[in-house]
């Protein structure tokens, strides 16, 4: 028993010694960015030798946890509101806030014949339920509501709209066939090559840009390096590949 314990401690010591130069970056990230973040983290680890730990969840919950001292190094939110709040409250590292991705909204149905290229289906009675993210909580939901308001169909569709708590659940409502169509994130369709069906991409000027911002919470070298990597050509290329527009800092 003693021998086992001793060799265990020795093993741990060796591991620590090997990892002396490498730190761990704890990344709180909005659920809609899971796939892209995993790719980013993988590349970052390969490039820098630092390991990462990803904590997925809703931006509202992450914000509340960060305010109560959650041990995250960086925070990748689904919107601009919460990073801005952390900035104003002096919790985030000053000057570290930037837009890392801009999301695209898409109306999608697994049924290949349901959605026309002009999005006229919104005026029809061809579906029973339309899924959208909760407009009160999710930028994608608010954008969906704006698109429908602009098309003049929102009052009529209100009672047929089912609300997912977030864009992930909204996608599941449509994918499982319980809602015939829904406003989801273009990145979700990109992440699912076999999604198929029919889709309509509303003009990006018809809704408030879905900007996603990140802030640095702890000023460690490894966390700084990660933020630099996300904004580097290699990082922005990955973000674009996953169906977002990567934009340079717009100072919003």
């Amino acid at each position, binding site marked *: 028993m003693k021998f086992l314990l001793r060799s265990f401690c020795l093993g741990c010591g060796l591991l620590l010694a090997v990892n002396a130069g490498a730190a761990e970056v704890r990344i709180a990230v909005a659920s809609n960015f899971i796939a892209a973040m995993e790719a980013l983290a993988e590349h970052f680890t390969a490039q820098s030798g630092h390991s990462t730990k990803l904590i997925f969840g809703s931006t*509202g919950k992450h914000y509340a946890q960060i305010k109560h001292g959650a041990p995250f190094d960086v925070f990748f939110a689904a919107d601009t509101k919460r990073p801005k709040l952390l900035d104003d409250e002096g919790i985030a590292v000053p000057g570290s806030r930037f837009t890392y991705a801009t999301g695209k909204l898409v109306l999608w149905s697994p049924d290949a014949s349901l959605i026309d290229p002009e999005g006229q289906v919104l005026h029809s009675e061809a579906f029973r339920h339309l899924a959208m993210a909760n407009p009160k909580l999710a930028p994608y939901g608010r954008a969906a509501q704006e698109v429908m308001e602009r098309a003049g169909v929102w009052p009529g569709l209100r*009672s047929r*709209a*089912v*609300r997912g*708590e977030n864009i992930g659940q909204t996608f599941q409502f449509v994918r*499982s066939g319980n*809602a015939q169509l829904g406003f989801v994130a273009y990145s979700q369709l990109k992440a699912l090559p076999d999604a198929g069906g029919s889709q309509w991409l509303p003009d990006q000027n018809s809704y408030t840009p879905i900007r996603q911002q990140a802030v640095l919470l702890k000023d460690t070298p490894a966390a700084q390096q990660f933020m630099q990597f996300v904004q580097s050509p290699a990082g922005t290329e990955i973000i674009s590949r996953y169906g977002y527009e990567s934009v340079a800092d717009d100072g919003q």
Partner: protein
Amino acid sequence: MLTQQDLDALLITLQLAGVTTLILLLVGTPFAWWLARSRWRYKFLIEAVVALPLVLPPTVLGFYLLLALAPDGPVGSLVKSMGGDPLPFSFTGLVIGSVFYSLPFVVQPLQNAFRAIGRRPLEVAATLRAAPLDRFFSVAVPLARPGFLTAAVLGFAHTLGEFGVVLMIGGNIPGETQVVSIAIYDHVEALEYGQAHWLSGGLLALSFVMLMAVYALNRRFMVVRL
């Protein structure tokens, strides 16, 4: 203060808990009776299935329900072929989910109460020429009254606090499937802590008063043997 939408959520929650409890008492009573009296060799399998909702996260139940009730799912396609409305995102769908979710909380207390009676009182009733149904209603039910009370209270209370199942199959439609727990969750997510407080505090007070009334009544009941 509570908005109209919050009040709607409260009303839907109470309706859901009430309807679910009624259905479970009606279905659960004969079921629990059978479980308590049967000597079938494989009864333990059924008992394990009944107890599953105690162990499983509600999200598991909600996830499978959503798949089963989908238009091309096993239950959903049946409903569709019979010309019924789709069940997910409807009050009926929530009732179905809640019945599964609260099943052990109603069946188990009843089963224990029926088992505690034993065979003797029923045998005595039989010798006095009471028919099976008569034996059940005049002997078993009055003796199992505390079990019924516990089952009803637990079933109602458990449904009142439901979150995971509703989150998965409700679709959060205000005035239709938005229950209190979901409304509170939304308020917290939207940083509306004031409204979250009102709603949470209201539910807390309501639950406490309800349970207090039940237990006070129970004391009275046990004293006055009706």
